[in-house]
């Protein structure tokens, strides 16, 4: 087939010629694995009994792959694999640095916990409808977004996770869900379209889509190109995905409608993908523009926190309270991005990882509470403490963690953020962070007092009950992990500091994509 010509082209500058090592395969394996298993589950849709078994095994393997990936990246620095032998910037590159690997591992762990919880939460019809294939495809999208090194590819993974999240959100097709999905669907589609608009402009300006290439070229182009407009568009698009004020209203409108395990997954993963993308674009690609936008970002962060926590105080439904708390947490992360520096960015990354754990755990708790109390409103829920002491204790720990109290995982990011805010003299931001922590304490305390501590007045309240391991287990695991990260944060803190440093000074990232200086 190969045609011979008089002037053969030297492709050695554009093609990968060295054999690929197994470690490089780790970079694409999370995505390829999730896609393959998800496709397999789609084919096996009639075997509803096999579905959870295969999916759980696959998620466990995904956790192991991500552990290996994190270990590799922590030892050897950022790792790149390009598709189809084309070298960047021609080929699509998957580049993993510490930030991406940390987010991917935490996402996989949360998804595994949700997989176990789903055994109790997803019934036969949910399995037939395709919960498990959608879960695997969602994980493919989430992992892809964390691992890719190409900004258009990031858009594609956003869409993959978005379309599977639509499917998960309408699973069950109750009226509330249809209503929630309409708002979620349209607003998220507009957000990703804005992302695509920004990417189109970026391509028109840079002529490249590879993130490392963009980071390299940003300095030369800064004088003559409207980079500020680009970054503004990206902040709007990712802010919408992450549910930052004033484009946060889709989240509390939809997150309380689907199955509990779906809410838990979404609260843990989806908004954090938005935050991750915001960090990647503003901190690594356009640091100068982030500096200029920092006041706006700080204002967005402070307002998001405040609106979120005040919304949580105003609600009576367990899951709607949690929806507003997710929004409030996003505010803290945006504030971290606004502050910048190792403390701010590190705090934002730590907060995002902590929020993945704790919000998923709290949604699990809401599901168990709704099952025990047969209601979801804290006006009528009561006496949960008497029903199951261990469950009440775990929920209380999660409430402390989300409010940022020691010795739980929420404490350290809060310390980092407040200290970083004070260091740059943004005392009002530090005050907002502390005030929001206090309000969160009141909101969750009110929840705990009314739903757990209050004596039930119903005659059929009954005595203690037992909880099945498939709901209690994931909740306990996530809570204990949050406790462990609060008591012994050193290894994670060290990694996060390296990750933040790698984002601020991406020379290792660039070297991984363009070994030996790259083309020209």
């Amino acid at each position, binding site marked *: 087939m190969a045609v011979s010509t008089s002037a053969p082209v030297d492709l050695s500058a554009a093609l990968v010629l060295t054999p690929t090592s197994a470690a490089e395969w780790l970079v694409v394996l999370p995505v*390829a694995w999730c896609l393959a298993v998800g*496709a397999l589950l*789609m084919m096996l*849709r009639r075997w509803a009994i096999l579905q959870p078994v295969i999916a759980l095994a696959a998620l466990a393997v995904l956790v192991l792959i991500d552990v290996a990936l994190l270990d590799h990246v922590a030892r050897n620095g950022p790792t790149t*694999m390009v*598709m189809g032998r084309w070298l960047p910037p021609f080929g699509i590159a998957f580049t993993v640095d510490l930030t991406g690997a940390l987010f991917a591992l935490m996402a996989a762990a949360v998804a595994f916990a949700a997989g176990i919880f789903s055994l109790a939460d997803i019934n036969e019809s949910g399995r037939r409808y395709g919960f498990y294939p959608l879960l695997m495809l969602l994980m493919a999208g989430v992992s892809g977004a964390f691992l890719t090194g190409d900004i258009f590819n990031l858009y594609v993974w956003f869409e993959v996770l978005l379309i599977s999240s639509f499917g998960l959100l309408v699973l069950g097709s109750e009226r509330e869900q249809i209503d929630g999905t309409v708002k979620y669907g349209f607003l998220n589609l507009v957000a990703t379209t804005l992302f695509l608009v920004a990417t189109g402009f970026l391509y028109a300006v840079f002529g490249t889509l590879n993130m490392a290439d963009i980071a390299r070229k940003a300095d030369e182009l800064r004088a003559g190109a409207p980079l500020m407009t680009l970054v503004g568009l990206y902040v709007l698009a990712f802010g919408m995905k992450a549910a930052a004020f004033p484009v946060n209203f889709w989240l509390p409108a939809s997150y309380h409608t689907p199955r509990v395990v779906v809410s838990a997954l979404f609260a843990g993963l989806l908004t954090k993908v938005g935050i991750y993308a915001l960090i990647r674009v503003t901190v690594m690609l356009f640091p100068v523009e982030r500096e200029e936008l920092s006041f706006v970002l700080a204002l967005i962060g402070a307002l998001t926190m405040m609106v979120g926590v005040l919304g949580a105080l105003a609600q009576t439904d367990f899951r709607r309270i949690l929806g507003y708390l997710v929004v409030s947490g996003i505010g803290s992360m945006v504030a971290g991005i606004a502050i910048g520096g190792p403390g701010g960015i590190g705090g934002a990354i730590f907060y995002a990882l902590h929020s993945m754990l704790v919000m998923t755990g709290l949604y699990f708790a809401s599901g168990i509470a709704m099952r025990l109390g047969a209601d979801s409103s804290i006006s009528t829920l009561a006496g949960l403490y008497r029903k199951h002491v261990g469950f009440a204790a775990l929920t209380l720990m999660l409430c402390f963690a989300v409010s940022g109290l020691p010795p739980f995982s929420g404490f350290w990011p809060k310390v980092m953020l407040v200290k970083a805010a004070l260091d740059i003299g943004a005392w009002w931001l530090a005050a907002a962070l502390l005030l929001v922590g206090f309000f969160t304490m009141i909101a969750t305390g009110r929840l705990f007092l009314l739903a757990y501590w209050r004596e039930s007045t119903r005659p059929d309240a009954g005595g203690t009950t037992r909880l099945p391991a498939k709901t209690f287990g994931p909740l306990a695991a996530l809570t204990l992990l949050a406790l462990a990260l609060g008591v012994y944060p050193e290894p994670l803190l060290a990694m996060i500091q390296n990750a933040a440093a790698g984002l601020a000074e991406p020379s290792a990232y660039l070297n991984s994509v363009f070994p030996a200086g790259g083309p020209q």
Partner: protein
Amino acid sequence: MKSIIFRTVAPFLTGLMMLFSIFVLLRGHNEPGGGFIGGLIAVSALAIYGIAHGVVTVRRAIYFHPMAIAGAGLFAATVAGLVSLFARVPFMTGLWIYPSVLGVEVPLSTVMLFDTGVYLVVVGAISSIALSLEEGGGA
């Protein structure tokens, strides 16, 4: 639809369009065509058959559930990327073999497997939506 002309023509039209969609799929490597556009042609064929003879007939004719077809396509596409793991080249690298069948050299490649996967994904996903819309709209 009640028109007798349409009902008579529809099966032949569907068969022809199916054949044409496979032709478009296979010529897609070096010339305009490919899995996506071929898949869309196949879905239009199914849709025409559905309008003429009802959705139930189409579902029986394609035998597998549309989403299972899409799953098979996605699986084929992913496997096409993973084959390069064994050749020690990066993910999604196109690999070719030229077996000789009855004296004719037949070029086979992972690229073709990938494109067939895309074809099946499009056929499965879009026909699933089209059929459910036809069911809902007709009622």
